[in-house]
C-alpha cells in the first residue's frame, strides 16, 4: 500500500512540475517539427484532405529551384555583411563606452532600437530612405541619394543591411560591454607595465580575452540575420523586382501564397540544416579559440 501510494504521489508531483511544459513543448515544437519532416515527403497543397507520397521529389525540386538558391545567395550576402558590420560597430561602441566615466545615456540610446519591433523599424526607415534622404540628396545635389535606394535593385539590399546593423548594434554592444567589464583590471595593468598599449594591448590582451563575447554575439547575429523576416517585409517586402526577397520571405511566400506546402516545408528544412551547421561550426571554432586570463 505504502509503495503504491508513494508511486502515485511521485507521478502526481512529476505531472504537476513537468506536465504543463512537457505537454505544451511537445505539442508546439516537437510534433510540428516531426510532422514537418513528414510533410516534405508529400504533395499537400494546404486545402485538399488527402495527399500523396512523393518520396524525395520535393527535395529534388528544391535543389533545382533556381529562385530559391538565388534568394539564398542574396541572404548569404546580406548575412555576411550584416554580421561583420553589426559586430564591428557594436565592439567599437562598447570599447569606447567602457573607457568613459559617464556612459549611461549612450548605452540607453544605442540600445533603443531593440525595444521596437522589426515591423515598425522597417516602416520608419522606409520613410527615411524614401523621403528624408532623397530630400537631402536633392538639396545638396548628391546624386547617390537623389533617388531612393529602396527602388534600386542594386542598393535596396544595402539599405536592408544598414537597418539591420542599426537595429542590432546596440544589443550586441551591451553583451560586449559586459565582456569588457569582465576583463580583469590586473591583466590590463600588467600589460601596460610590459609596454603593451594601444593596438598591441588590443590585439594581444583584450581581443583574446573577449573571444567568449564574440562567440555569443556572432552566434546571435548569424541566427537573426539568417532568419530575418519582419524588417524585410516592412522595409522592402522583397522588392524591387525580388532583389531583396530573403530566404525566410521566400519560404513564407512559397507556402502561404503559392500554396506549395510540401516544397515550402522542404525549403524550410534545408534552411534549418544549413543554419544549424553554420552556427554550430562557428560555436565550435570560437570555443577552440578561447583562452584563460
Amino acid at each position, binding site marked *: 500500500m505504502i509503495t503504491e501510494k508513494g508511486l502515485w504521489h511521485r507521478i502526481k508531483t512529476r505531472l504537476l512540475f*513537468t506536465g504543463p511544459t512537457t505537454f*505544451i513543448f511537445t505539442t508546439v515544437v516537437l510534433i510540428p517539427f516531426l510532422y514537418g519532416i513528414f510533410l516534405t515527403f508529400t504533395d499537400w497543397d494546404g486545402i485538399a484532405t488527402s495527399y500523396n507520397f512523393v518520396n524525395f521529389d520535393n527535395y529534388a525540386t528544391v535543389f533545382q529551384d533556381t529562385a530559391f538558391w538565388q534568394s539564398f545567395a542574396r541572404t548569404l550576402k546580406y548575412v555576411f555583411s550584416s554580421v561583420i558590420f553589426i559586430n564591428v560597430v557594436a565592439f567599437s561602441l562598447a570599447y569606447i563606452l567602457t573607457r568613459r566615466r559617464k556612459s549611461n545615456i549612450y548605452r540607453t540610446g544605442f540600445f533603443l532600437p531593440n525595444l521596437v*519591433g522589426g515591423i515598425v523599424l522597417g516602416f520608419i526607415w522606409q*520613410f527615411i530612405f524614401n523621403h528624408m534622404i532623397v530630400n537631402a540628396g536633392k538639396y545638396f545635389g548628391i546624386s547617390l541619394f537623389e533617388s531612393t535606394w529602396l527602388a534600386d535593385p542594386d542598393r535596396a539590399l544595402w539599405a536592408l543591411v544598414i537597418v539591420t546593423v542599426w537595429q542590432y548594434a546596440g544589443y550586441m554592444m551591451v553583451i560586449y560591454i559586459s565582456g569588457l567589464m569582465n576583463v580583469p583590471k590586473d591583466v590590463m595593468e600588467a600589460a601596460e607595465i610590459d609596454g603593451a598599449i594601444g593596438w598591441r594591448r588590443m590585439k594581444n590582451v583584450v581581443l583574446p580575452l573577449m573571444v567568449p563575447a564574440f562567440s555569443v554575439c556572432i552566434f546571435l547575429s548569424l541566427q537573426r540575420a539568417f*532568419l530575418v523576416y519582419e524588417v524585410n517585409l516592412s522595409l522592402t517586402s522583397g522588392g524591387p523586382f525580388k532583389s531583396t526577397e530573403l530566404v525566410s520571405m521566400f519560404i513564407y511566400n512559397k507556402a502561404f501564397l503559392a500554396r506549395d*506546402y510540401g516544397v515550402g516545408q522542404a525549403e*524550410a528544412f534545408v534552411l534549418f540544416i544549413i543554419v544549424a551547421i553554420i552556427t554550430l561550426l562557428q560555436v565550435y571554432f570560437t570555443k577552440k579559440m578561447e583562452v584563460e586570463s
Partner: protein
Amino acid sequence: MTSSMRKTWGAVKGILLFVVLLLFISPFFIILLNSFKKNKEITSAPFSLPETFSIQNYVTAFEKMSYFHAFSNSLIITVCSVLLIALFAAMTAHFFVRNKTKLNQVMFMTMVAAMIIPFQAIMIPLVQIYGSLDLMNSKAALIYLYIGFGTSLAVFIFHGFIKSIPLELEEAAMIDGCSKIQTFFKIVLPVLIPTTVTISILNVLWIWNDFLLPSLVLIEAKQRTLPLSTFYFYGTYTADYGPLMASLLLTILPVVIVYLFAQRFIIQGVMQGSIK
C-alpha cells in the same frame, strides 16, 4: 602629448561620440517631428519644424488602427505568456535539477537541443495542425504557442541557476513539514526572482514586438496585436503620411515609457541572458 592637448582630444572624442548617438536615435525624432505635420508639409519639407502643431494625426491613427483594442490585446497576450512561461519553466527546471533520472536528463537535453530549430522550420506544419483542429484565431491559442516556444530557453536559464542553490535550504523546509509544492513556492521561487526578471525581460521584448506568429494565428481584425494593427494600418493608408507617422509613434510609446523607468533592469537582463 601635453595635458592640454590630451584634454582637447578628449573633448573632441566626446563630441564625436555624441554626434554618433544623435545620428543613431535621429530616426525616432524624425518620426516624432513629422507626426505633427500635414501630409503636404511632410513630403515637401520633411526636415522643417511643423508650421502648426496639430494632434489631428494622432486622433486619426488612434481611431483607425483601433489602438485601444490592439494595445489591450498585446498587453493580455504578453502578460499571460510571460508569467506562465516563467512559472512553468521554473517548476520544470527545479524538478529536473533535483531529480536526476535518465528520463529527466533526456527531456532536458531535448528541450535544449530544440532551441536551434528556427520558427520558420515549424510554422508551416504548425499552421496546418492548429488550423485543422480549429484552434486558431484566439488569444488563448497564441499564448499557448508562446509558452511552447519560450519554454526551452527559460528552462535552460533556470536550470543553470537552480544548480547553484544549496539543497540544504529545501531539505530544512521539508523537515519542517513542507510538501514539495510548498517548498517550491515558499523557498525556491523567492530565490529565483532575479532570474525570473531576466527571463521575463527577454520574453517581453520578444512577445510584445513579435509579428510573424500572431500574423499566422490571429486572423480576425479585432484580435490584432499592436505590431499587426500597425502593419495593416500601413497597408491601407499608404500615402497618408501624417497618421502613419503618428501610428508608428503610438506603437513605440508604451515600450519607451517602460524603458525610461526600467532601463537598468532591461540592459542587465540582456547582459545576463546572453551568458549562457
